[in-house]
Every structure is written in structure tokens, then in C-alpha cells.
């Protein structure tokens, strides 16, 4: 199975519980279709570089998962159908990307992580 990662942007209008519910819904969809979730990362509410659907902020969420290729189409259809998701991007990870994301998760780039948390705080 190929490894993928997907970034989704949820509308800022959701409450914390509602946002969690969306995420659990999609996690369930993934595991039900034979995908295996490797890692999840919540970037929190971030300012967008340009307005999307007339909103200037969005909740970012990154999921890394292993899945059979046919599932990606199905997942993206579900993303399009869900109005709470403003934007999504699914990318398949090649060997360099895999090495990079593993290194990042193990905390090899602590400098990067610090700068990222600062951005979220603003």
C-alpha cells in the first residue's frame, strides 16, 4: 500500500466539538476502507494567505495514512461533498518524502517545530 498525506482546511465557523466530529468521521471512513492512519497533526486555526469561500482563517489538519490507491478517489469525493471542508490536498509520498516526514515526527527539526508553533499562537 502506498502512503499518502492529506491536508484539509475546515471552516472557522465550527465549534471545537464539531471540528472533532468531522475529523473522526473521516478517520472512520479511512479505517473502514482498509486504510491505516499513520500520523495526525492538528495545526489549529491559521490565517489564510487569501480568502477561501470568503473566509480569512481556517482550521488545518494533516493526516498521514497508508491506503490502497482506489480509496483516494472515494475519499476526495467525500471531501467534496462535505460543506465543512473548504479545501483539501492529498499527496502521495515518495521515498524522500517518507524519510522527511519520519524525521520530522521523531523531532529532528526542532527548530522548524518551534517556528511553527509560534505561527499558530499568532
Amino acid at each position, binding site marked *: 500500500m502506498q502512503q499518502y498525506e492529506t491536508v484539509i482546511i475546515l471552516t472557522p465557523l465550527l465549534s471545537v466539538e464539531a471540528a472533532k466530529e468531522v475529523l473522526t468521521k473521516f478517520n472512520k471512513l479511512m479505517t473502514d476502507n482498509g486504510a491505516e492512519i499513520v500520523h495526525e497533526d492538528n495545526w489549529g486555526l491559521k490565517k489564510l*494567505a487569501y480568502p477561501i469561500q470568503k473566509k480569512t482563517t481556517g482550521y488545518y489538519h*494533516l493526516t498521514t495514512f497508508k491506503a490502497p490507491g482506489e480509496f483516494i478517489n472515494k475519499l476526495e469525493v467525500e471531501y467534496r461533498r462535505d460543506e465543512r471542508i473548504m*479545501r483539501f490536498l492529498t*499527496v502521495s509520498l515518495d521515498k*524522500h518524502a517518507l524519510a522527511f516526514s519520519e524525521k520530522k515526527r521523531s523531532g529532528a527539526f526542532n527548530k522548524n517545530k518551534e517556528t511553527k508553533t509560534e505561527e499558530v499562537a499568532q
Partner: protein
Amino acid sequence: MAKDQIQYVTAPKVDENRKKYCRFKKNGIKYIDYKDANFLLKFINDQGKVLPRRLTGTSLKFQRKVAQAVKRARHIGLLPYVTDSIK
């Protein structure tokens, strides 16, 4: 004050024969992360356009990857498509 008043007849030659190099090849970076907008800022001008290789010195192989990463970052709203000045 005195320093400000120094004037040169011809512009001083600074970094005259510094050769450009590909920073990815030099540092052994194999993957360019589209999620790191701060890093990608080095490869776009203040309008948000991708800088040419002749300015950044990036090799062709990595220029393609930079361009791909910038486009992905734009799609997920980390970088602007068009702007007057970044920040």
C-alpha cells in the same frame, strides 16, 4: 555621519566572483516540504511569483520540485497566488 558621506567613483565590487550553487545539492536536501511556507518564501518574489533559477542558483531537478511545492502551498492557502507585497 562621516561614513555616510563616503562616495565611490565606481561602484565597489562586492562578491564579484562568488559562484552560485544549488542549496539542495550542497546541503543534501532531497525533499522540499510544501507545508513549510517560511522556507518557500526564499524562492518567490514579493509578488508571490517563483524566482528564476538564474537568481537562486537552484539546479533544474530541484527547481521543478520547488515549483511543485510552491503550487501546493498556494492551493492550501499557505502562500498567495497574487499579492502586492508578502507580509
